């Protein structure tokens, strides 16, 4: 809604700034593209590209919508989301018009909409003209129009025609912004030429439509879609818009609009529908009533076997089952009797659920009421408890959690306490009783509306105009926001590395959540390597009797003998054993027990949690030994690595290992103790695989260690002469399944090519010409369900399959990945792996393998996530199999994989001030111990939109959106997913502007807590997984998607938005001192090439790889002291390590690198990037704020978003 006027000065200022850092150097390089482009790349292909066609018509179409366009974009899949979403948006966009109308359009109140439209249309038209000009340009002048065009955003027309080839510094203003142009290799290698020429062409406005074209259509189509009952609502509102509104009027109008908004939204789906529309709006009602059994049993019906939707997709009955484990399991039990295969599953689930019943094998044995209705009244939010009960329940919470709370937060609890005279009843009962609570709350109730937000949040809520503020990054990598809790709770709360919520202040109602336009979800890293973890051995594990929640620091002790569950509010007894505290050896202090003092604990499970004796650690290695594999040469390095780490494999004396190799046949290895050497058994009947010998193929590692070593040393040579090119991966996996099914364990598959024989054979589906297509990417889903079915079988037998894909060719990872996705495995991918030609991949492979072999592992695991009643989990992301509504079956669990869940708010959370989430992971350790790791997270509940924004966790939101976008791009299309991401930014800015910031500020304003959101979304759009237009191999794209789903948040964020530091001028200011090493802390830099300078050295931390970029004029001392080379020219081109030199500078650099690596699971490789090496493209690709060959720069993106917002507004004004 900001008119271009105010925005443009801002950007032009910044562009000018850009030119200063390396203005001197840039011009010299500008000649590069000008000479190389035309010869290498004929421009025709790009100018004729469809995006242009799409984009331009749509811009005029905006003012007069063309209904016939509708079917084009509104594909079947997107209907749900876009209808809902855009109806919301429409309603939404009313809001801004009330208070904003006065500001941004105040100049012309008499004719509000038209001027803005023309303004916006003008700009594209200019560009269009220009672009036409450009088409007519002879190739050599292309750069000219390119530079001119840049300035069209900011500068008057004369400057547009500025001949850019003039090497004067003044004309080079644009150059530093667009790095790829300004640092081309002088040789003009073909690769480079491609990049720059593409950039110059796509930098025309034709780029933007790739992103904005589609939304435009959809806005149009959503207009007819808006339902008649809603429109009267608009009708009421509209008059007040057109009249110049006074503030008072505006606010009243706003409330009416909000009512409309709220009402209609209860029926609609909100963000839930983003990923997939799963739970029907009716579902919320049915699950409350006793008839919920049918709704869950639908889920466990035969679909259970096929399970096509299960892995990611949520559960139809999802609803509130998260808090009602036993109830759900009881409901499942009847249907499970229909199939033997499911018996095991459900039993195990009961084991987890029905912990203290005596070895229950049927769901009905759990002693827990099947339904919430049978709980005591008053704890049940929608049964309207009497006021007295409500206080009982609200008051201890308020008291416990918020002894010294800020006024705004009290509003939730205050009314309850005030309304009842009995509030002191529990006030005295427990330790924190002496707070002057009632007075506080009365005061706050009085002040609540006026006093605004607490001080803490002022910073988080500060509106940030993104178009003006350029320095958004904090000096250090972003930390998770702290939830606004009392100090006591904060101290015990779960670490954000383990458990993170997208909103650290949970909105009270779904309506409020909808209004915030942010997704609600959790990001979990449950099996993370922890430095310290309280392990508790006790006979009885204290759990809530109704929802099976483990006792945790956020429960309330009513008195010595009773505690109230913080998830379902049931009052439970404290068992005798719990009265004794083993840590302090004292009696009668249940609240001092370690369970109640730590949010992350691990219990040693009793035998009730075991369905069978704990399995031994079992590892089976399935190795591809076809010609292709031998060519790539991985086998030798695998064997070396395994030999080295054989003793470090997690396990005890029972550890079992086995090997299986395959090409067109399957080879087993008899390693039975007592043999003189390993025996190879070949099974050539791949159509009906059988196991040649039963007890000698998986052998005890300790007893057969010599034989295993023998095998590993001889294996690489055994197949060196093979000519067999076929690969029977499917049958080999079937064999592995049969071999492991009696124990369960881990299967590691190494595959180097497309499976060509037997079951599960695959065809190449990738069309290399489509790699850079911007239209959409096909074949993101599996080609066959063979791998998925096998994975589900594996999961049932507690076998996890990990996939190592080392290939140079297309290998259809989309299909193969299923084997790991559903069996909770991990996927590793090494594109174009070759042991000689690709040392970088080899090093990565070796590093990964070492970590993989030695990292912790949990077997036969299940994980359940419970949350406070009223919240419900509906979609899971990650690698697992959803066994029942809220139980994730993890055949193997490893410390490097993470999970995400999406949640919705089913009931108002008004009657409690805290919301809690508990993830319990039951697993068998490699030493045969059954353990339960429990994480509990506690967050405040708020009822103000501003508080929701203040608590938003931008990184978590980004990661959750990334997960949702991946789902969406597989289920619908990539462009849909991208649009949805852009819309997320638009929605946020619109809703923030309309509802929270009452500043009459123009420009793109977001809350400070979310100021990095557009940047992160832009970075996401430029990731391999989601980018379009750039040549991306299908396998790499699919792998990037898999990583999005399973990487923990920190790692993912570093991949999406790497950290950039300048290393050559590190000072000791703010340095960390860790065990007598000084770790300097350089400032974080924006990922824009304007931040780079030619005389510096910059480190980019991309999570699994570091790039150290050395500027051409980098001072020789740094090169000498750190890299050990004399000068820039003598740095070898493929340098990939930092030598250990004795110089202080080197020590500091290495200390810093070590420190960065410290908490990382997989050790990262480092690449020294010089200007003329090929790694440079990788480095510059990560500079997400720059314009790239097919995607816009950050500023352009912001302008696009802003245009999008004002478009929504103007359209609604014309309506």
């Amino acid at each position, binding site marked *: 809604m900001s008119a271009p006027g105010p925005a443009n000065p801002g950007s032009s200022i910044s562009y000018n700034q850009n030119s200063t850092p390396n203005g001197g150097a840039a011009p010299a390089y500008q000649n590069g593209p000008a000479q190389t482009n035309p010869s290498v790349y004929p421009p025709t292909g790009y100018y004729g590209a469809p995006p242009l066609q799409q984009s331009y018509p749509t811009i005029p179409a905006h003012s007069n919508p063309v209904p016939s366009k509708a079917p084009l974009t509104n594909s079947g899949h997107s209907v749900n989301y876009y209808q809902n979403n855009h109806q919301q948006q429409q309603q939404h966009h009313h809001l801004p018009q009330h208070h904003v109308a006065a500001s941004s359009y105040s100049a012309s109140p008499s004719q509000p909409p038209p001027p803005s439209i023309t303004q916006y249309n003008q700009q594209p038209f200019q560009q269009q003209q220009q672009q036409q000009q450009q088409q007519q340009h002879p190739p050599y002048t292309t750069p000219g129009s390119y530079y001119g065009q840049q300035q069209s955003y900011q500068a008057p027309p004369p400057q547009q025609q500025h001949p850019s080839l003039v090497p004067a510094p003044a004309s080079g203003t644009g150059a530093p912004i667009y790095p790829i142009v300004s640092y081309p290799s002088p040789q003009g290698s073909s690769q480079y030429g491609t990049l720059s020429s593409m950039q110059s062409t796509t930098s025309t406005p034709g780029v933007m439509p790739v992103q904005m074209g589609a939304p435009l259509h959809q806005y149009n189509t959503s207009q007819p879609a808006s339902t008649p009952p809603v429109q009267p609502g608009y009708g009421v509102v509209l008059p007040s818009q057109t009249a110049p509104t006074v503030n008072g009027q505006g606010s009243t109008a706003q409330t009416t609009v909000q009512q409309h908004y709220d009402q209609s939204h209860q029926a609609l789906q909100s963000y839930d529908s983003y990923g997939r529309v799963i739970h029907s709006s009716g579902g919320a009602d049915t699950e409350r009533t006793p008839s919920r059994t049918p709704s869950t049993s639908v889920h466990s019906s035969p679909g259970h076997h096929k399970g096509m939707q299960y892995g990611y997709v949520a559960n139809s009955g999802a609803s509130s089952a998260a808090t009602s484990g036993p109830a759900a399991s009881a409901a499942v039990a009847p249907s499970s009797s229909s199939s033997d295969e499911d018996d095991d599953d459900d039993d195990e689930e009961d084991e987890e659920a029905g912990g203290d019943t005596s*070895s229950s094998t049927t769901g009905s044995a759990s002693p827990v009421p099947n339904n919430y209705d049978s709980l005591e009244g008053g704890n049940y939010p929608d049964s309207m408890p009497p006021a007295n009960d409500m206080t009982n329940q609200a008051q201890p919470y308020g008291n416990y959690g918020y002894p010294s709370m800020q006024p705004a937060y009290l509003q939730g609890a205050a009314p309850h306490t005030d309304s009842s005279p009995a509030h002191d009843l529990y006030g005295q009962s427990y330790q924190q009783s002496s707070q002057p609570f009632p007075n506080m709350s009365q005061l706050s109730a009085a002040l609540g509306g006026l006093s605004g937000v607490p001080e803490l949040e002022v910073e988080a809520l500060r509106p940030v105009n993104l178009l003006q503020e350029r320095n958004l990054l904090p000096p250090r990598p972003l930390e998770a926001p702290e939830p606004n809790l009392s100090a006591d709770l904060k101290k015990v709360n779960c670490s954000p590395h383990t458990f993170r919520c997208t909103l650290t202040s949970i909105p009270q109602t779904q309506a409020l959540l909808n209004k915030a336009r942010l997704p609600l979800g959790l990001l979990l890293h449950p099996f993370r390597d922890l430095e310290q973890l309280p392990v508790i051995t006790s006979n009885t594990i204290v759990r809530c009797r109704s929802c099976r929640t483990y006792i945790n620091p956020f429960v309330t002790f009513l008195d010595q003998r009773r505690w109230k569950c913080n998830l379902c509010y049931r009052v439970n007894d404290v068992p005798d054993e719990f009265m004794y505290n083993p840590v302090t050896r004292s009696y009668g202090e249940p609240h001092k027990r370690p369970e109640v003092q730590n949010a992350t604990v691990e219990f040693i499970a009793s*035998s009730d949690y075991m369905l069978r004796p704990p399995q031994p650690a079992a590892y089976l290695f399935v190795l591809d030994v076809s010609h292709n594999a031998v060519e790539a040469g991985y086998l030798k390095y695998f064997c070396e690595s395994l030999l080295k780490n054989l003793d470090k494999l997690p396990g*005890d004396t*029972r550890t079992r290992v086995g090997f299986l190799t395959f090409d067109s046949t399957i080879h087993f290895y008899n390693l039975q103790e007592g043999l003189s050497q390993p025996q190879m058994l070949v099974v050539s009947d791949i159509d009906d695989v059988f196991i040649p010998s*039963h*007890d000698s193929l998986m052998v005890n590692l300790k*007893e057969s260690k010599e034989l295993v070593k023998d095998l590993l040393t001889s294996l690489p040579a055994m197949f060196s002469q093979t000519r067999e090119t076929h690969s029977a991966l499917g049958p080999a996996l079937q064999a592995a399944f049969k071999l492991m099914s009696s124990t369960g364990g881990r299967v590691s598959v190494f595959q180097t090519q497309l499976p060509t024989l037997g079951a599960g054979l695959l065809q190449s589906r990738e069309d290399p010409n489509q790699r850079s297509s911007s239209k959409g990417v096909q074949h993101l889903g599996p080609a066959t369900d063979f791998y998925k079915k096998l994975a589900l079988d594996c999961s049932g037998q507690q076998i996890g399959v990990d996939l190592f894909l080392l290939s140079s060719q297309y290998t259809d990872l989309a299909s193969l990945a299923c084997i790991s996705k559903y069996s909770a495995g991990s996927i590793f991918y090494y594109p174009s792996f070759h042991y000689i030609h690709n040392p970088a991949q080899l090093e990565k492979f070796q590093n990964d393998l070492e970590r993989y072999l030695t990292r912790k592992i949990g077997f036969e695991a299940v994980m359940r996530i419970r949350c406070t009643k009223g919240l419900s989990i509906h979609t899971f992301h990650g690698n697992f199999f959803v066994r029942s509504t809220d139980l994730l079956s993890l055949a193997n669990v490893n410390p490097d994989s993470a999970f995400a869940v999406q949640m919705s708010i089913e009931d108002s959370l008004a009657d409690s001030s805290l919301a809690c989430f508990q993830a319990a992971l039951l697993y068998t350790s490699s030493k045969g111990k059954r353990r339960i790791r429990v994480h509990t997270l506690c967050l405040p509940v708020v009822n103000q939109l501003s508080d929701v924004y203040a608590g938003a966790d931008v990184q978590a939101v980004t990661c959750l959106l990334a997960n949702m976008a991946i789902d969406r791009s597989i289920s619908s299309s990539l462009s849909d997913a991208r649009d949805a991401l852009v819309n997320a930014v638009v929605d946020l800015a619109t809703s923030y502007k309309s509802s929270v910031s009452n500043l009459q500020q123009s420009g793109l304003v977001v809350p400070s807590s979310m100021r990095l959101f557009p940047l992160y979304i832009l970075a996401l759009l430029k990731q391999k997984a989601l980018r379009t237009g750039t040549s991306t191999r299908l396998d790499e794209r699919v792998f990037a998607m898999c990583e999005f789903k399973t990487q923990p948040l920190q790692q993912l964020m570093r991949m999406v938005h790497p950290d950039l530091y300048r290393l050559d001028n590190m000072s000791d200011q703010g340095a960390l001192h860790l065990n007598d090493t000084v770790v300097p802390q350089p400032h974080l830099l924006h990922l824009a090439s304007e931040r780079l300078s030619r005389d510096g050295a910059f480190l980019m931390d991309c999570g699994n790889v570091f790039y150290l970029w050395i500027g051409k004029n980098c001072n020789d001392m740094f090169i000498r002291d750190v890299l050990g080379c004399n000068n820039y020219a003598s740095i070898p081109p493929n340098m990939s390590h930092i030598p250990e030199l004795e110089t202080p500078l080197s020590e500091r650099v290495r200390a810093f690198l070590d420190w960065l690596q410290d908490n990382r699971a997989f050790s990262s490789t480092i690449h020294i990037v010089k200007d003329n090496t090929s790694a440079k493209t990788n480095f510059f690709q990560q500079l997400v704020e720059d314009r790239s060959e097919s995607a816009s720069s950050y500023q352009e993106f912001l302008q696009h978003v802003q245009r999008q917002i004002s478009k929504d507004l103007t359209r609604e004004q014309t309506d």
Partner: protein
Amino acid sequence: MIALTMIARVVDGLPLAASIEEDEQSGRDLQQYQSQAKQLCRKLNTQSPDRCTLEAGDMDFHYLIAQGICYLCLCEASFPKKIAFAYLEDLHNEFYDQYGKKVNTAMRPYSFIEFDTYIQKTKKTYVDSRARRNLGSINTELHDVQRIMVANIEEVLQRGEALSVLDTKASNLSTLSKKYRSDAKYLNTRSAYAKVAAVAVFFITLIIYLRFWWL
């Protein structure tokens, strides 16, 4: 064929070690047997007979209690009892050697799961028919095998349950008798009232009769 082996502490039935069985070929559903075994270990106490065979369908449980540790195995009914007990003896000797002192301090279930390796090896020698012949000659001294008590697993497991059934029945009975008693009382009073009423009616009629007919 020995399908399942389990070692547990008798005092509280805590499982100490067990052997994962290969049910690949037999395809039997061992789940049920496993839970039975678990329950059995919980039921056993120091008063239980030292050696016992429990029939469970076409399978037999054999158990042996020594030094407060129970060794339990599940075999096909056709598997010679003598061998089964020899096998349990063997396990006991080895297990007690290795872990005997630690048994009483064990806290968590399956603390000595590593014994599984030995169990599997031993099992193999006893199951293998050729090796068995040799063993058979060694273990002839196990002559009292015939006197080992045989019972049905269901009976053993349900022994406790029967008592509780009896208990509920008795309590039902007592509530019923209480009810009967109150009912009887009520009836008694009712009949007494009826009698009084009848007499009263008779006298009133008499009086009326006397009043109107005699005067």
